[in-house]
């Protein structure tokens, strides 16, 4: 187990370096520089001074200096677009917002998704089954901006149960959290239902029932553990995606989260912020995938992690 974790951790820097290279290349191939902005062009001397302070006189100088600064100082430098801010400051301000909302959304998604999927599988063909199908349809096949806006209009405007937007109190987290968690919830409900149906028809469940255990106990103690495995592997990427925020939800609820930077950094050709956002996302994703693999071995002791390493 420890060997497996160490091996995976050793791969982190390699993967991150590759991620860095790909992003850097794409960001520099993309046309347009943050320094030319149509009408409010700076005088050339000022521009040169700014570029020099950022070690960006040429792409080559930047190429050499920038990774050095990231690795040694953990510093992504100044944002090209918001010159007063460093990328680190921007990320540090935005990440807690997204993580708070994402954690709430994820908890919501797992609890309701698993519950709904299990109920749908146990009462197959019933109204509950259809309800779970309906929620899955809404979650999977409607664009996020529609569901988020619908939630806002329903529960903040028409029935003002929750505040319209902003970030600070717990009440303000609920609605955007649900909006973020809706799609993962739909997926989780679907995954749980399918794997639950499979598990419930397996021999060991019949044996457990034959021993005289109650239906409830068999489902909660015997079936759920195995039915949860596909959900678990989905949770790696899903956690990374929800924790780093959603542009749409932040737009609708007016939140200062990280999701906006995934879109705006590219729009503003803010190369340093692009790199910072991508690296943070990749790091979270890699960590989540590692945690999921460890949790996998914990939930299902038959899985041998050491074996996976060589495969």
């Amino acid at each position: 187990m420890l060997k497996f974790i160490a091996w995976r951790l050793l791969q982190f820097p390699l993967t991150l370096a590759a991620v860095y290279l790909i992003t850097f290349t794409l960001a520099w191939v993309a046309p347009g520089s943050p320094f030319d902005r149509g009408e409010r062009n700076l005088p050339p001397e000022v521009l040169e001074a700014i570029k020099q302070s950022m070690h960006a006189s040429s792409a080559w100088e930047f190429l050499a200096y920038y990774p050095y600064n990231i690795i040694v100082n953990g510093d992504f430098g100044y944002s090209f677009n918001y010159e007063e801010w460093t990328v680190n400051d921007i990320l540090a301000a935005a990440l807690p917002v997204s993580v708070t909302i994402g954690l709430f959304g994820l908890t919501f998604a797992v609890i309701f998704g698993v519950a709904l999927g299990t109920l749908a599988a146990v009462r197959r063909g019933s109204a509950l089954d259809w309800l779970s199908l309906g929620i899955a349809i809404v979650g999977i096949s409607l664009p996020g901006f529609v569901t988020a806006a619908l939630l806002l209009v329903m529960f903040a405007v028409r029935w003002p149960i929750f505040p319209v937007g902003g970030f600070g109190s717990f009440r303000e987290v609920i609605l955007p959290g649900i909006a973020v968690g809706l799609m993962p919830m739909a997926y989780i409900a679907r995954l749980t239902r399918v794997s639950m149906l499979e598990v419930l028809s397996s021999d060991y469940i019949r044996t457990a029932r034959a021993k005289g255990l109650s239906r409830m106990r068999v489902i909660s103690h015997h079936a759920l553990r195995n039915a949860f495995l596909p959900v678990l592997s989905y949770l790696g990427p899903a956690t990374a995606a929800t924790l780093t925020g959603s542009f749409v939800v932040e737009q609708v609820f007016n939140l200062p989260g990280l999701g906006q930077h995934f879109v705006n950094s590219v729009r503003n050709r803010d190369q340093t912020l692009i790199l910072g956002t991508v690296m943070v996302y990749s790091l979270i994703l890699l960590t989540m995938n590692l945690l999921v693999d460890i949790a996998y071995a914990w939930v299902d002791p038959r899985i041998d992690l050491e074996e996976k390493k060589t495969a």
Partner: protein
Amino acid sequence: MSVAPAESLHSPVERPVSPGRMALHRARESGRLLWGGGFLLVMLILCLGSLPWTTSRERASSLYFDHQDTSRSYAQPSTGDVSLLLGADRLGRSLLGRALAGGAISLGIGVMAAGVAVLLGLTVGLLAGFAGGWVDNLLMRLVDVLYSLPYVLMVILIKIALEPALAGLMPSQAANLVVLFLAIGLVSWLTMARVVRGQVLSLRSQPFVEAAAALGLPRYRILLRHVLPNLAGPVIIYATLTVPQAILQESFLSFLGIGIQPPMPTWGLLASEGLADGLNPVNSRAWLLVVPCALLALTLLSLNFVGDALRDILDPRREQEKL
């Protein structure tokens, strides 16, 4: 054992059913395939069949997607005029016409993006699975790395990076369309590559491929005649499931304002345009939001249904119900 009478030679013997026949039988039984496929077919015929009316200015058709008529601003859905069947938007443009033209574009982008994803995923997967060794290792690590890049940011970045390269080659509207499905396709091929590679690896060790190799067939022939046909199942399934993803991705890009450029419509663009009018609590024009959303949801649902049904049909080992 008694001697069998002569006619028993022709008596119905339990003939082995071919996998193809079995699949066909299951396809006819599958409600999801019939409903999903039927809906998609009707949608396709409607959207493509109405293109002469929805895209031509010359016919002076009130269904033309950019036919503005301020006297019909926010006209409610009514049965009197065909073009007002689904109402009209702020500029008095027929929502029916825009929804039909938008459907053609949305579906087109979805299919083309899925095509790009299939082509790329198939190539990489085949190469990795067939070459093995360091090529396999390199390609699969590359896929791992690309998996850890944020999807949203990459689509936008690729779209912006590709735009100037294509803008010189064709008119700007066409270039925008091509860049759009290329960008979506370029971020959607990873799962396909993994699936194809896994399939190739398992096929490679099967007796019939070994037999073909023992017969001395060249590698490309084994690849084309023996491995590729056996990949059709998973490839079709994942292609079907990629189309709804691509359509949804396009709607997101439209919401950001970097998808298809107005006045051209797509369902995603119509939904994001209708958002303000449809949800206005004071003076709601619900149809402007409900129509594109319903079309999107039903189409995506049908595509998912068809994909899942195909999975059950083409892969006999997986006989579970999805969704």
